[in-house]
């Protein structure tokens, strides 16, 4: 640690001896972080396989899919997918991606691994709680997988599970799939609450000497704000989930109003409100969008600065913007419900607040471009992914300006325009953030680089591929193509508008892009064992504390010697300094006198 000017000695924790307590039920935030990332990798490939089935079913409904008939004899007899199977795939794809991928990897994965090191801590504040969070998340994942294989199959009510459809089996197919879905979500909420608590306390209490809040890397800021969002949002979803479970199994009526008639049968319930679920769900659901995307924004800021060799443009404004997005994120949930039948007056208020959230988002975008401006850009693969993130964020964000207005939403609500919007912004933009983070921190985590050539090929195929998939969905929205239709034929105005050609194009693009992800998977596994060895502690010439510790970091990160922090997180290209970067643990003496000394 020759980069460190001064350090504080702390008590060292010995590394556990047994394999199980070191690698399986580990208390080490780094191992837990990697476990979260691995869980997300498994989940993302399952989710992606589901999306492939969705696309295949849409354009070739009569075509048998190999092996599918053996796996799901009811949903896909002889490999031919039924319309209800299509809806199950769609529900499970959304749930798998939103919860098990977009919520786990950016926060639980990278946040867990990097945040304690970046703030100069030995571990998270509550290591046991941290372990409990991961294993509860794992249970939740198992419960979700159960939903596929129970009688009746996976639920068909969409990832938003609107009652009465999700509450009454007689409205769908009788079975316990929806119950398993709720149990999974409830467990996930518990895990995320525990995780959020841990992140908040760690950030507030365990920062190294000299590391003030306004010196924190933007990654830490976004993980911190994300944790606050998680703490406030997941509790509400947990409550809603429990109520829905009671409605389904114990005869309560929280979400079921009186007088429902299904198949000529009067449903003997009364007093509930289906709109209540929507309020509770979206009170969680909208912050959830930011839970998925904020860490990606932090990673992007971090990486753009590092590889442009420039300080983040407007660091303070970036921090305020993150805080504003987090705060406003709690008062805009109603924009998902403009057409729900709620009061049109409140819809207008939600709309004004929603447009306000466009402002900090625009600030972030322009500051990213400002960070690149005048830089000396190094086009490594993390940098490519980050630039891709900015583009996707802009494209996906601007369609939100349409959907955030109730007037325009009168046309676009529940069409493919919405599908295009949220996939670009919270789906692929967030995933580009993860690709960027993984290629960036991989050498620190495993002591080997990911293969740069493969990463670049993967970047190009994926960047162009996701635009080819989700770009045309905007045009489908113009026709306007309703979402969640198991068949694309039948609606007259769609046939006249030429939707079939667009669907074929999207499916082909999706097949190519999904195949390209195998390059990523191969790169990941191959690099773990055979990647170029990273012998340097700071291969990217970055400034934050994780690059001041050995590669890979020892069990307690700093080997008992916590460095003192002297400066902000992004001191690149300081005038008169010897090198074009000054690490946070470098004193002014080190930064400038070295220059004189050499």
């Amino acid at each position, binding site marked *: 640690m020759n980069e460190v000017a001064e350090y504080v000695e702390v008590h060292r924790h010995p590394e556990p001896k047994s394999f199980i307590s070191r690698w399986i039920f580990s208390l080490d935030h780094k191992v837990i972080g990697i476990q979260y990332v691995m869980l997300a990798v498994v989940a993302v490939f399952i989710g992606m396989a589901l999306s492939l089935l969705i696309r295949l079913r849409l354009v070739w409904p009569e075509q048998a899919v190999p092996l599918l008939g053996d796996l799901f004899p009811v949903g896909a007899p002889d490999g031919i997918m039924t319309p209800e199977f299509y809806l199950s795939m769609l529900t499970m794809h959304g749930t798998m991606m939103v919860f098990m991928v977009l919520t786990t990897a950016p926060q639980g994965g990278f946040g867990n691994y990097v945040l304690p090191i970046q703030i100069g801590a030995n571990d998270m504040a509550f290591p046991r709680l941290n372990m409990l969070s991961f294993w509860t998340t794992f249970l939740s994942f198992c419960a979700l997988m159960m939903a596929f294989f129970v009688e009746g199959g996976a639920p068909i009510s969409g990832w938003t599970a609107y009652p*009465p459809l999700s509450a009454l089996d007689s409205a769908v197919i009788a079975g316990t799939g929806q119950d398993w879905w709720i149990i999974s979500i409830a467990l996930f909420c518990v895990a995320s609450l525990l995780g959020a608590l841990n992140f908040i306390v760690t950030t507030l209490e365990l920062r190294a000497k000299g590391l003030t809040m306004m010196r924190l890397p933007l990654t830490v800021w976004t993980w911190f704000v994300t944790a606050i969002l998680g703490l406030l949002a997941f509790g509400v979803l947990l409550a809603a989930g429990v109520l829905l479970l009671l409605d389904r199994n114990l005869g309560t009526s929280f979400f079921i109003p009186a007088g429902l008639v299904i198949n000529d049968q009067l449903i003997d319930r009364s007093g509930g409100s289906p709109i209540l679920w929507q309020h509770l769900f979206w009170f969680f659901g909208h912050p959830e969008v930011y839970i998925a995307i904020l860490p990606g924004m932090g990673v992007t800021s971090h990486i753009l600065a590092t590889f442009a060799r420039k300080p983040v443009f407007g660091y303070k404004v970036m921090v305020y913007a993150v805080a504003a997005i987090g705060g406003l994120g709690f008062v805009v949930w109603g924009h998902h419900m403009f057409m729900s039948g709620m009061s049109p007056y409140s819809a207008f208020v939600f709309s004004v607040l929603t447009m306000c959230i466009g402002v900090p988002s625009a600030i972030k975008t322009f500051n990213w471009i400002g960070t690149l401006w005048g830089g000396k850009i190094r086009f490594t693969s993390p940098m490519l992914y980050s630039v891709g993130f*900015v*583009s996707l964020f802009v494209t996906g964000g601007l369609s939100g300006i349409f959907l955030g207005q109730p007037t325009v939403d009168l046309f676009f609500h529940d069409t493919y325009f919405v599908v295009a919007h949220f996939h670009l912004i919270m789906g692929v933009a967030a995933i580009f953030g993860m690709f960027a983070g993984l290629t960036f921190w991989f050498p620190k985590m495993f002591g080997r680089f990911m293969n740069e050539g493969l990463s670049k090929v993967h970047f190009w195929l994926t960047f162009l591929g996701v635009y080819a998939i989700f770009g045309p969905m905007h045009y*489908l929205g113009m026709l306007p193509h309703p979402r969640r239709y198991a068949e694309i034929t039948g609606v007259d105005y769609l046939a006249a508008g030429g939707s079939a050609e667009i669907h074929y194009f999207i499916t082909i693009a999706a097949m190519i892009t999904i195949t390209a992800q195998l390059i990523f998977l191969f790169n990941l596994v191959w690099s773990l064992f055979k990647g170029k060895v990273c012998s340097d502690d700071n291969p990217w010439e970055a400034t934050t504390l994780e690059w001041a510790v050995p590669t890979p970091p020892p069990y307690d990160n700093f080997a008992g010697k916590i460095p003192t922090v002297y400066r902000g997180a992004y001191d690149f290209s300081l005038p008169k300094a010897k090198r074009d970067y000054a690490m946070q643990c470098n004193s002014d003496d080190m930064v400038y006198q070295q220059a004189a000394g050499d």
Partner: protein
Amino acid sequence: MVLIVALAIWLICILLVAPFVVKIRLTNFLLAVAIWLICVALTIPFVAKTWWMPDPITDHARLVDGQMALTFVVTGVVFILAHLALGYAVLKFGRDRSEPAEYTTGNDRWELLWTSAATVLFVGLVFMGYTAWAEARFAEAATQPGSPDREVVEVTGQQFVWNIRYPGPDGKFGPLDVNLIDDSLGNPLGVDRGNPDGKDDIVVPRMAVPVDKEIEVILRTKDVLHNFFVPELRLKLDTVPGIDGRLRFKPDKVGTYEIACSELCGLGHYKMRSYLDVMEQADYEQWLAEQASFLQ
């Protein structure tokens, strides 16, 4: 066609030759070109209206289209500017320059500029769209249902059909009784035929309305959520059990328009469709009389 091919060849030539001419690295050049091409490729079909909304058939729908156009202009400008700048930054500052990066931690004036620009543009947009929204929904929320100068139609969603009910010659909807509901006997809504108001109620699977007349739609559902959406009307509302949703429109073009359910309602969601026939007044009256004659 020739033009497109020529353009493509020209583009490819530039792509291949340019990096050597201006001595920049291939990666940043390709990235900049990709960013710009994506920007252009996404924009063109919107400008050319290759895939576009069906023509509006009410004044309100035209108001919505005006707001839509305004939003396209505002977001289009931001979209193109951001991508131009991003591509330019990648191209220009990706060159391997010998001098160090420019040291700057930000610029308050620029921050102020784009913060205020974004605020004015985005928040301004909402208020520009106020009238269209208010006309669609506020007026309905403020008035009593069933004003005399309007044709009132009740639309009830059900897995996976639409039931359209007209009050009949007496202009009054009869009371509904859930115990009378029987799909097989042709009484999907449970109309009480013994009641004088309900005796002449007409229930059909297809919706007809007269042209140039104010129509009020009462939206209901028997079971789960559905969504009543006619693209040409630019109107959409969930049907929620327990709540009477209300929409109002005044179509000015005779024709047949499709109603496709726009809220996931179960297995047959994709099949849940009906039609809206906008007719001349005389045709409409004749149609109503025909439907009423089936009740005898």
